[in-house]
């Protein structure tokens, strides 16, 4: 059985800065895979290269055995993508945006109609389906983006920070959708800063820092008996500011 997503030695430089450094990663089919790391670790750059949004300087990406950069259309059919920090066609209403993405994905119009209704309903967007996406809050924008990623029933979901700005209720709904998606034979990889979320949701994960994989594997193997938060801090060797630094900040509570 081929793996859902394989990254082989992918590398990306921005000018003199090496954002992703010969990063290799395997996401087994049927897993719910978390990608964690500090700000600037290269998570978004990695996922962009995996989804065909950013051309790697070096390396290979395989989705279900298909090379993303040799045969982009074939690989893109298999993926549903939610990038972070990119705009949507936000002068369309939520319903129109879903239909647009569905048509570009060549989903039969009757299926688009039925799936849109279910997705909008499940994500609590039915009320706002005919409002322009530009007027959505950031959490609602995330949710309509997720619906767009799901509309063609992909085999692999690649989500960049899907839980950011999403309220706890919608977060639970999204977690439910992802679990059901995996139970039905799909694969999910998503990035996050929130360790508790990853610990609770994922069965596999990778910790990246400075564009490299620091640790990867099953949840229990990576956390090695500790909490994921503690293990993460250990792996990155984070120094907490010592006493005697930033003391002037305390003045704001009283005298100045």
């Amino acid at each position, binding site marked *: 059985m081929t793996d859902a997503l394989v990254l082989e030695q992918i590398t990306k430089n921005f000018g003199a800065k090496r954002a992703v450094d010969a990063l290799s990663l395997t996401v087994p089919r049927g897993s719910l895979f978390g990608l964690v790391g500090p700000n600037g670790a290269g998570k978004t750059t990695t996922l962009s290269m995996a*989804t*065909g*949004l*950013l*051309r790697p300087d070096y390396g290979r990406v395989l989705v279900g055995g298909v090379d993303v950069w040799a045969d*982009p*259309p074939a690989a*893109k*059919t298999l*993926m549903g*993508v939610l*990038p972070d*920090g*990119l*705009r*949507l*066609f*936000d*002068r*369309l*209403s939520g319903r*129109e945006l879903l*239909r*647009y*993405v569905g*048509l*570009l*994905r*060549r989903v039969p*119009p009757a299926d688009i109609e039925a799936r849109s209704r279910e997705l909008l309903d499940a994500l609590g967007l039915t009320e*706002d389906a*005919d*409002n*322009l996406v*530009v*007027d959505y809050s950031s959490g609602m924008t995330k949710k309509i983006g997720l619906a*767009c990623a799901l509309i063609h029933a992909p085999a692999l979901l690649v989500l960049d920070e899907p839980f950011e700005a999403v309220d706890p209720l919608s977060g639970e709904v999204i977690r439910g959708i992802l679990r059901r998606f995996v139970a039905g034979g799909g694969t999910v990889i998503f990035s996050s800063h929130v360790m508790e979320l990853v610990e609770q949701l994922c069965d596999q994960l990778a910790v990246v820092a400075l564009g490299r994989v620091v640790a990867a594997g099953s949840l229990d193997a990576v956390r090695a008996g500790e909490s994921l938060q503690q293990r993460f801090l250990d792996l990155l060797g984070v120094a907490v500011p010592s006493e005697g630094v930033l003391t002037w900040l305390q003045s704001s509570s009283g005298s100045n």
Partner: protein
Amino acid sequence: MVAVLVGLKLRLLRNALRQSAWRIVGVVLATAYGLFLVALAVVGMIALRFTGVAVGPDVVVVGLSALTLGWTLVPLLASGMDDTLDPGRFALLPLRARELLPGLVASSLVGVPGVATVLIALASVVFWATGALPAIAALIGAVLGVLTSVVLARVVTTGLGGLMGGRRFRDSAAGIVAVLASLSGVTVAMGMEAVSRTPNAADLVGSLAALAGWTPFGWAWSLPADVASGRWGSAAAKLGCAVVLVAGLLRAWEALLERRLTSPLEARGGGERVGQSGWIDRLVGTSSAGAVAGRCLRYWRRDPRYITSIAMYLILPIVLVVSMQLQRRSGDDLGAVPWEFFGPFSLAMLVGLSTCQDLAYDGTAVWTHLTTGVPGRADRLGRLIALGVVVGPLFVLLQLAAAVISGRWDLVVPSTAVGAAAGLGGAGAASWIGAILQSPAAPAGANPFRTTNGGGLQAMIATMVTVAASGILAVPVLALAWAGLDQPWAAVAAPVVGLGIGLGAVTLGTRLGGGYLDGHWPEVLTNVSEKRA
């Protein structure tokens, strides 16, 4: 604060230069062009000063007033306003508009247009320095004139931009277009009148200078002229007007700044619902190209940037119609062809321009096209279908208007043939060049007169290629149409060749452009992303 803001602007400009080779080329070209204009103005004024030609003062007043007018018009019509120091970014700092104002005025002068204007203003002081009083008047005039130029431009672009970026603009767009069109028509008509009434060039410059001196653009600049020729009453009046104008403009800018500092976020509409627009979906079908066309059609209706394009498509032919009316009175028809038919032709020449900008207007939202794997050709074709649905009726309307006004129904077919070659030709060329060259554009809802870091040059090249292609492709059809006025074979050949050239250009343009996109989608996404400009 002034030094801090000027320093900040210099640093931002330098950093932007480091990021993009396009930006460097753009700055080099702008600097060369600016230097050329400054040299021309300085040498010209000094030559006029020492040869003592009688029209010298008039020429200088007209030129400098035109410079101030240009500061206001150019950002509106063409390049947009340099928004390196967006006041909204200062919103979280404990600063008042009044504290920022001097620094923002000073930093507006940092840059090629600002430096060029200051140099030209200084040269005008040399021109007037034939005595102590004119020299002092010239110095005061120069300071007031430069201030008027810079601040007027800011106030107009910020004020109008706030108006046009808002959702409300959509519904008032038709009215604004009508007003603008009639205003520009009237201006052209008045200019033509003046030219036709004045027999010789020196008198014409004289009356232009008198006129310019009494407009807000010329109050400051004509001050030394009045002083030099001893018109003290007029000089005092102009000094008063210029000072009040600058003070008023500064006050207006301060008010706009104050608003920007307290509501820095870009306009968001208030939860307005949209209809299903089912007719669009039925019209364009469910193919990939049809889906793109449907999306674009909704954008033509909902995105202020596209609405502004439609406005431009309407204004230009209307202005031409007005000036044509004046030409007709002086009995100057272009041989056998009435000027009316230049209306639809000029529209056809402009049609491709919005297609050049399409990907830039989409911005980072084009990731949708990347991840869905839509064929590049479907992307190109869909955009052209939407363009055709929007512009086609406009073209027919202008064509019919031309026929009705001139009564020359026999010219409709040849004129449509030429229009087909120019319009479809331009659209095809734009499909190709627009796929290759993109730069980040201000997002919808932001001030449409804002330029973004490093754009401009690519858009300018794409525009030139498109207009050139329109013109070149129209030439053979134009020749045939002309010959067709008395040769029946050519009259038959013109529409066939026109349509053939047009459709050929569209086929070729969408195929080449689409093929390029298929291979370069990720680079397109990088090009239109503002942070990587």
